[in-house]
């Protein structure tokens, strides 16, 4: 009597696991797949299917690359009002995201928007994977009927999705806070750099003017002559 619920439970889990694991054994479609969550707009390839356990590392690596590049000093243009061109990691990330896929204009100042959109796609991919479950194959899994390992994998995936849905936005928000402080002064820094260059130009021009001014007493004093006397020739 007491064994029947356990047996039914085990069978149910086995069926569910078998159903969920089928695509993991080579039946997962390659490339894009219609999204189960409409708002997510599909997984655009930033987070490859079948590699769920690598998504966090992929996400972190991309964000880290964009922010590292943003924090390094870049060449400042003072001759026109051109926007700061985007860094390569930012361009690479943005071109894979829906708002910038069609070649819309992108500048380095768009970094926060791109990162937030990237985060949205990441969370969507996570949520979708948790919803479909088929996206969470455990690559360590060897046997289709290894129920306990499959169950453990599913639970671990759900826990990761839950944790990342909290941790990833907060970490990005804090990062953007730090960058907001420096970025707010970044325009000032650019202005100061341009002012320094202008000052050097003014200094050099004034240096030439000072050199010229050294001739003023000689030029204005009627007792002297600016002319270099002609060499005396013997009579």
């Amino acid at each position, binding site marked *: 009597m007491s064994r029947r619920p356990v047996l039914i439970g085990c069978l149910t889990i086995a069926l569910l696991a078998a159903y969920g694991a089928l695509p993991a054994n080579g039946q997962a479609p390659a490339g894009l797949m219609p999204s189960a969550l409409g708002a997510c707009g599909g997984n655009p390839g930033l987070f490859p299917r079948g590699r769920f356990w690598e998504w966090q590392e992929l996400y972190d690596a991309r964000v880290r690359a964009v922010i590292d590049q943003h*924090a390094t000093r870049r060449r400042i243009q003072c001759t026109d009002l051109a926007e700061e061109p985007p860094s390569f990691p930012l361009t690479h990330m943005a071109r894979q995201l829906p708002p910038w896929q069609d070649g819309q204009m992108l500048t380095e100042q768009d970094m926060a928007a791109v990162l937030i959109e990237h985060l949205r796609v990441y969370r969507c991919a996570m949520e979708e994977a948790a919803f479909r479950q088929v996206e969470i194959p455990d690559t360590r899994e060897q046997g289709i009927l290894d129920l306990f390992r499959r169950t453990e994998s599913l639970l671990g995936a759900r826990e990761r999705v839950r944790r990342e849905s909290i941790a990833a936005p907060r*970490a990005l928000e804090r990062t953007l806070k730090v*960058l907001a402080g420096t970025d707010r*002064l970044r325009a000032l820094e650019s202005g100061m750099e341009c002012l320094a260059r202008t*000052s050097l130009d003014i*200094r050099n021009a004034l240096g030439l003017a*000072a050199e010229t001014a050294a001739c003023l*007493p000689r030029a204005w004093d*009627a007792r002297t002559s600016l002319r270099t006397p002609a060499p005396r020739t013997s009579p």
Partner: protein
Amino acid sequence: MRISRAAIGLLLLALLPQAVTAQGGVYDLMREVTNRELLRNEAGGTVVEGPVNDFVRAVLRREPLTREDVSRAVSDSPGFCRDTWKDPISCAALRTSIRSLTLRESRTRALGRDLQIIAGSAEAPVQDFAAEQLNLPLRAQGILRIWRAGTLRAEAGSSGSVIRVAEMGPRSADALQAVADRLADLRLVADDTEQFTGAVWRYQYGVRPVRGADPSVPLVPANAARDQPERQFLAARWERLEHALNTLLLALPPPRSLTPPLREGETVLFRLPAEGAESARVVFDTMNVRPWATITRRADGRLIADAGLQWVTAVQPVLPSLCREQPERRREGCDPIPGGQTFPPLSMSGSGLCLGPLAQNGYLCRPADAPRGRSACAEAAAQDPNRLILTRCAEQSPVRRTVSGPDVCAQENWRIDPPAPACQVRITCENAADPTGAFPVQVQGGQAHVPLGDGGELPAPYEAIKLLVHSRQRCAAPESPDPFLAGTPEERNRACCRLSRDAYRSACEAMQADGLFGTGAQLERQTLAGRPLNSLLCADILADGACRARGTGTCQDTVTREDTDQSVAQQRTVLLSSIRGWWGARVPAPAPGWCAWIRDGTGGARSHDPRVDAWIRSTEEQGQAACLPGQTTRYQNTIGNNLCMIGRCVEETIEGHRIVPGRQALTAQDQAYPYEACMAPLRDGGTLTALPPDLSTAIPPYRPGLLAQTLDTALCQTVGLPAGTPPARCAFQASRRLSLPLPTAAETALDLLDQDREARLPAEGISLMAEAVATRIGTELYRSYLEESARNVSRITDAASRLLDRFSTVTFPTTMCPVGAEDMDAFLQSPLCPAPPRTP
């Protein structure tokens, strides 16, 4: 030895999950902060950070808890209550207590870190010793160096400190390693980051202020750590780390080896060497810390060295301690610190901010040099309790007066190693009366003795100017015989009239500038012997009268030359009496007496009166012309110094040039040379470049009180209630439900308990929105300040640009001015002469 150090670095890299590099490790740091907030480690397991864990176990000390127990209780691990000593009921209660306490403390610490992140991100770019990427003070100083005039010595002016950056050098590798080892000890051995964090913040301004060696920073009382245990690490000291930092100072390059040599008021900031000390660099990178060192030569010549630590990205603040620090019993557990107490600020709070060589010139560290009423100080007049006025203004602004007379850059000390003065002025407070009738200023041994007694015929400042003009005359030819005594009577007459008239002329012009003969339209309303009174008549009367009284005869170049001796003497007496009367009625005598007041200047000036000071410098700079043909003049290539050079050349030209007699134009618009008719019209003549007179800027007021009130008001209004403070009063009003009770008392009670629910959602919404609004308010503060200051800077650079642009459009002729008939014929045929004069 090397292996062990490298091993420490590698060990740190391996042990610290938050290992980041100094370059671009911001995201990893933020991941670490978030993990701590969520009580997670990198692997996803539950971890309660050390201080909180120890605190929880100490508070719940009745239960035999381990660190793992606390983590298991927080993570809802089923294993927590499986231990045999726990019965299910008490275990659930214990778990609730542990979770509640842990989450509360962790939330507080997360808030502290968030506030630090916000503040640190704004402060980092403007710190003196901040790191590599964005350092606005150094950039600002670079611009100042390009613009300022002077030799960049401290006495050259008040333009601010000078700082340059250098590397620590290969000798410092061992000392750097020692500093890294001490920090690693604090981080690893102490088993938590509290001491490490406290040490980095404690030495952020250097070791000297912590040791009490800097009088501007009060020493933290010895009992501060005991009396205020929550702040114990703000008052703590780490002797071994201090020793390592002092060792680093000894390993710095010696000041005499610096090129160029260290000047007074200059600071060298030493940073990590690009090569060498690799293992130490690994440790510093891992810890998100940078060591720094400085050597400063003060204005009095003393060398001051200091070393300290600085965060690369300041994330971790000194959080309130949870356990009282007990080094001897550290391993035995935690002595929990009861919370809820308030303490007065520590005496040294904020005082280290102004120690930086550049920060000490900031608005928080000194009053603005602007008199009240100027735009920079306009906010100070408005008293508003909701405002924090960030700019203080000097009560008596040190107005720097210069006299653009003999030398436009007299007070700038712009030349490098100018020639030694031929004549040194020495003012003595003795009477000038000399019965022999000799020249009033005598030069002996390279010193011009200026006798400025109280019995002078003119008020002291004017008498000083007169005598200084005489000293300048005498210093021009110190070896020549006394001009008042030597020569024929005619020569003595000419010398007396010329030299006296020049001296009186300068003194009388100073009087006229002071308004003694009337100001504006009132000038020349007064008359003396029927002539309008001004500085020229004043000089003529005084000089002619003096020379006649001396017995050298009438001065032929004066307007009084036709007057009788008696008339001139009478006019002179009336004029002197009038001058003394005007002076005595309007100008009170200073305490030390006029002579001493004039003689003893301050702040690098030789005299209190800038006009007197200018004449002293002018006298001593005779023979030091900067712009003579063949003259070598050395100065640092700055905008200010170049302008000084141009100004000096123009001045010396006007003062020294001679126009050929007969070549001057007789009337206005007349031509002095026959070829002037050929000159192209001066298109830009009369266009002036003027700067606005007031270029000061003001720091906008900060209104935190008003902002907090606005937020409170918004919170109450959102739930449809009038404003109230604290806003919790808007969320709960017992009378609302009691006046309209529910059917049963139980329902009414439950509703009362849940009454704040309706305010909770709006409050959370405002909480989320407040951050964005605060960011905009902060940005608005920046904008308000930068808008005005940037506009002023652009006005200056625009004006400079326009002037230089005009320079570039000047077309210089390729031919010389004609001097003879042949040249003139050729000139008239040249394209420069579009309308050659026609011969009738």
